């Protein structure tokens, strides 16, 4: 008797003890027990146990135990667990999620790069405008300085010339 068959008939015996065995399964179990003495002995023990259990009175669970039992979370559906646990399915799921996440991340990165490029360009433009402002101001400053120097130089020159002329005047008269 193989291990797989062993496991299968052990489960059938458990179901038999619980009283949930179907007719066809019961027939199969009895036929197999007739061929296999070890299984027959186990079946006999199971029958004794079932009879002993059937003689016991049914008790109602207490309210606190019922509450506690209700609080136990239900198990996840088997198909989902099985599907997720399959290596190929899990790999496919990870791949799809990676692609979606990667695309989203790529788009965000591209957007940020575009923003940074625009900001850098705007900074350069502003620096250019400010440089022109500085250039024009320097030019104006130079022009103003030249104009002011000329404006102050001419009167001084005129006063100096007049003073010199005044000083020379008597001497010229004297000489004359």
């Amino acid at each position: 008797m193989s291990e797989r068959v062993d496991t299968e008939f052990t489960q059938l015996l458990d179901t038999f003890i619980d009283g949930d065995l179907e007719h066809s399964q019961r027939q199969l179990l009895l036929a197999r027990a007739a061929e296999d003495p070890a299984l027959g002995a186990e079946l006999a023990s199971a029958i004794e146990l079932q009879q002993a259990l059937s003689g016991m009175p049914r008790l109602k669970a207490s309210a606190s135990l019922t509450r506690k039992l209700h609080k136990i979370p239900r198990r996840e559906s088997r198909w989902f667990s099985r599907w997720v646990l399959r290596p190929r399915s899990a790999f496919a799921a990870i791949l799809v999620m990676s692609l979606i996440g990667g695309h989203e991340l790529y788009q965000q990165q591209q957007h940020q790069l575009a923003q940074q490029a625009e900001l850098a360009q705007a900074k350069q433009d502003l620096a250019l405008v400010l440089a022109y402002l500085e250039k024009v101001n320097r030019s104006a400053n130079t022009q103003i300085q030249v104009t002011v120097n000329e404006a102050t130089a001419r009167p001084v020159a005129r006063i100096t010339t007049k003073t010199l002329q005044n000083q020379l005047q008597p001497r010229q008269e004297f000489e004359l």
Partner: protein
Amino acid sequence: MKMLLTIILAALFSMPVTAQTAQLESLPGYVDFADLDAIYGEPRVMVNIGGPLLKLMSAASAADDPETAAMIRNLEGVRIKVYPTGGNLQPALDKVSEAKASLQAAQWEPVVQVNDADEQVQIFMKTNEDKVEGLTVMAVNAEEAVFLNILGVIDPAQVGKVMDKLNVDIDVDTE
């Protein structure tokens, strides 16, 4: 904060250039520089930076350069057009005279005026009480014609900071 900046920038980038120009035109310090493209061709330099982008630049540079960030924060727009004159000054000078007349009519105050034979510089400010709402610079010489317009409510202290930042001194020591 990043999300907010992203939304602002996304809205800004989706805004057409014409919309940004229209936004600048509505500001009090805006000056309509006559289009000299027909005479001098494409401008050598043309920059139009709107208020939202300036504010974003201010926010972005707040940590690294707080002084510049403060300077930019209250600006609403920065525009410049630079044309190569190639020695042909007269059309540009005519436009300067035209703009000068319209600026004076709109109560712009002349700050600096240089009328030299080979160079002309005009700097005007638009003030509202103690606030500056615009700065216009027009400079024409044998090499180029510069038309510059800075829009935004700036107090005089900030104007001084701008000048210090640019290392510009337009005061003339007469002693």
